[in-house]
C-alpha cells in the first residue's frame, strides 16, 4: 500500500488513473460462472420483511447487525449495539466483534463460505447475509457492512439494505468487486434452532460451542438439537446437546446424548465422565460407576476429572474406593 502511495505521488494524474484501472480490472468470475451454473438457485429472491435501520455516521456495523437480528426475531436497535461493536478510533466495527455481538444478543452467528453461490443460497433459503465490502479502491478503502436481502439473476442484481438506503439495487458484477476486497467476508446471525445451509460441519460446530459459552444452556440446547439432527455422528455436538440438556434439567435427554457420544467415540473420556455424573444423579449407581471407571481408565488430560467423578459417585453410594 505504501509503495503504491509513493509511486502515485511521482506520477501524473492520468497515469495514476490508468494504473489504478489496470490494478482494478479483474474479472467478476463468480458472477459469470453463476449465470451458467445456478440451476439450484431460484432466479430471484427478496427477504422484504427484513427491517431497515438507516446508519448513523460510521455505524454501518451496528445497523447491519440490528437488521440481521431483527430478521431473526430479535428486536434490537443499532444504538444498543454501538457499545458492543463500534471502535471509535477506528471509526468502524471489526469482523470478529460482529460475530461476537451476534452471539451476545442471542443469535447463532457464523461466517459462511466466501462464495457468491453460498451467499445467494442463504438468501434464497430465507437467511439475510451481512457482508463486508470495500466500496472504494484498495489504496483508499471505504469498508462497509451491508445486508444482502435479495437478488435477481435475470437482471444480474443484488438487493441490499445499505447505509441510508433501504433497498439498494446493485449490479451483481459491481457487488462482487466490492465484496472480493474483503476476501468475500460474510456472516449470518440466526435464531437458535435454525442452521445456515452452506456452512460445513466443522465451522458450525465451532460456532455452536462459542454460542453455548455466550448465550447460555437454554438457547444453546435448541441450537444443538437442530445440529445433531443434521450431523448425528458428531461427538462434540452430542456432548454439547447432552451438556445443555443437563444444564436445563433434562437428565434423560442428557443420558441419551452422552451414550450416543460414547458409541461414536469409545475413547472419549469426557463423554463417559459426563454420562457417569448424570447416571449417578438419576440413581443408577452401578451404571454410573462403570462409566466413571471407563473414563478413568481412558486417562489422558481428563484423568483427574474422571477420578474425582468416580470418587464422588462412590462416596455418594456409600462405598469405599477399592
Amino acid at each position: 500500500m505504501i509503495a503504491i502511495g509513493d509511486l502515485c505521488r511521482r506520477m501524473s494524474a492520468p497515469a495514476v488513473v490508468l494504473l489504478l484501472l489496470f490494478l482494478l480490472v479483474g474479472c467478476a468470475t463468480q458472477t459469470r460462472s453463476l449465470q451458467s451454473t445456478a440451476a439450484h438457485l431460484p432466479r430471484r429472491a427478496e427477504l422484504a420483511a427484513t427491517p431497515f435501520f438507516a446508519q448513523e455516521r460510521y455505524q454501518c456495523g451496528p445497523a447491519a447487525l440490528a437488521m440481521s437480528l431483527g430478521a431473526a426475531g430479535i428486536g434490537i436497535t443499532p444504538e444498543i449495539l454501538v457499545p458492543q461493536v463500534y471502535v471509535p478510533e477506528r471509526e468502524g466495527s471489526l469482523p470478529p466483534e460482529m460475530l461476537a455481538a451476534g452471539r451476545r444478543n442471542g443469535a447463532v452467528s457464523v461466517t459462511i463460505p466466501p462464495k457468491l453461490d453460498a451467499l445467494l443460497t442463504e438468501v434464497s433459503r430465507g437467511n439475510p447475509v451481512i457482508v463486508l465490502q470495500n466500496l472504494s479502491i484498495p489504496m483508499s478503502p471505504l469498508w462497509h457492512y451491508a445486508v444482502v436481502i435479495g437478488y435477481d439473476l435475470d437482471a444480474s442484481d443484488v438487493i441490499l439494505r445499505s447505509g441510508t438506503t433501504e433497498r439498494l439495487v446493485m449490479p451483481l458484477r459491481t457487488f462482487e468487486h466490492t465484496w472480493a476486497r474483503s476476501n468475500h467476508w460474510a456472516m449470518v446471525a440466526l435464531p437458535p434452532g435454525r442452521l445456515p445451509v452452506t456452512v460445513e460441519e466443522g465451522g458450525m460446530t465451532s460456532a455452536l460451542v462459542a454460542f453455548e459459552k455466550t448465550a447460555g444452556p437454554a438457547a444453546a440446547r435448541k441450537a444443538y438439537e437442530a445440529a445433531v439432527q443434521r450431523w448425528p455422528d458428531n461427538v462434540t455436538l452430542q456432548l454439547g446437546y447432552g451438556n445443555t440438556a443437563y444444564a436445563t434439567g433434562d437428565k434423560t435427554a442428557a443420558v441419551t446424548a452422552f451414550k450416543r457420544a460414547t458409541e461414536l467415540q469409545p475413547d472419549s473420556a469426557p463423554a463417559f465422565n459426563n454420562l457417569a455424573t448424570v447416571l449417578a444423579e438419576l440413581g443408577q449407581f452401578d451404571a454410573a460407576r462403570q462409566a466413571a471407571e471407563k473414563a478413568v481408565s481412558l486417562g489422558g488430560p481428563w484423568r483427574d476429572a474422571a477420578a474425582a467423578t468416580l470418587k464422588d459417585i462412590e462416596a455418594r453410594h456409600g462405598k469405599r474406593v477399592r
Partner: protein
Amino acid sequence: MIQKIKRLFVFALMTSFTFFGFTQTVQAAMIGTDQVHAAQASTENHAKIAAALDRPEVMSHLEKLGVTRADAEARVAALTDAEAATMAGQIDSLPAGGDVIGVLLTIFVVLLITDILGFTKVFPFTRSVR
C-alpha cells in the same frame, strides 16, 4: 516490542511446563463442551497460552481506541479464542466497516470513473455501465 518479548518469554516458560500438563481444575463433575472442543485442536496448550495472553492485550487495545473499560471487558469476554487471536494480531489492520461517505477529493475523479465502470460503488449518484 516489550509486549512481544513478554509474550515470547511467557510462551517459552509455559511450553517448558507442557509436560506437567494443563489438567483441568478438578471441581465440576461435568466436562464442558468448550473444553472438549478446545482439546481437539492439536496445539491445545499453545492455543491456551496464546489465548490467555491475547485477551488482556485486546482489552487494553480496545480501551486505547476509545472503548470504555466496562464495554471492552464485556466485548473481550464474548470473543472465542480464535477471534481473540485475530483481534490481538490485527486490531489495527483489520478492516473496520464504517461509512459510505467521505472520500478525499484527490481521488474523487478516479473513483468516479471506477464507479461508472462498476468496479467500485462509492457515490450514491453513479450508475455503472453494464
